[in-house]
């Protein structure tokens, strides 16, 4: 036997909350995207642990799809951040306070 499932879940929960605090507290668009990555990663850990617990391969398949979604999300997200930077010359989300020029 290796570690109990609960300890893996605790590790994933800690990782997820680190990502969540990053998303809500950092004032930098790139760091916010990094926090989203941390959260998706924690979700992947939970899926892999669940696949081992219930001896079902579907959990590992889900992590593959999470990786695909993360890649798509980061491509579009970084392009949006770049667009914001080009318009305001700043990575601060507070610089996007006006609706239109």
């Amino acid at each position: 036997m290796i570690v109990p499932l609960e300890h893996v879940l605790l590790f994933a929960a800690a990782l997820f909350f680190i990502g969540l605090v990053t998303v809500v507290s950092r004032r930098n668009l790139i760091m916010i995207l990094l926090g989203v990555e941390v959260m998706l990663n924690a979700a992947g850990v939970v899926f892999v642990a669940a696949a081992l617990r219930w001896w079902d391969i579907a959990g590992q398949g889900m992590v593959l799809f999470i990786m695909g979604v993360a890649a798509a999300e980061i491509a579009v997200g970084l392009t949006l951040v770049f667009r914001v930077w080009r318009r305001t010359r700043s990575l601060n989300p507070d610089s996007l306070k006006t609706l239109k020029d």
Partner: protein
Amino acid sequence: MTLYAVLFYALAAVTLFCTLVAVTRRVLVHAVVWMVGSLLGTALIFLLLGAPLLAGFEVIIYAGAIMVLFLFAIMLMAQEPNEPPEVRSMVRRRLRARMFWPTVWALAGIIACMALISFDPTNTTPLTAGRVSPRALGAWVFGNAWPAVEIVSLLLFAALAGARYLGLPLVRSDHPEKMAGSLDMDQPPCAVNPEDQP
């Protein structure tokens, strides 16, 4: 405590430490480099939990592709100039005040999760060591979950097209005749904002 358990706890500690350091860096490149350490730790944990293919993908896609994409984005966007030291200390003090409530909520959340998960400490669920070969995972994914594969590939294509479209130069909305998508082929397809020119 078996060797697997020792390895797992060591890797979990390293991963959490790297992630914590990564999300608290002010220099974005440092944050990305620490994040690579965190992702490598997660990949090794995937390997311990019996997912060698996912461990490889974690290194290739996350630590390789996505983090390099972050690095390119950081290099593309100029950094704000450094503040003088007195301003920096003031910023740090304000940062500490700003981090207070999120940290409190995160600790409360972790403690709540801990209470939920280890409600009965004697009733832990042991995981038996196992391993899913890449061949079995591939057979399952393409045999049982092929609609999801198609959906993810469509999503990746949509992301590609969206990134291409959003990366176009900004269009001046007060020149409707020069909007992107106009059929006038003599003109460039979109008017370039003069601020974009170096």
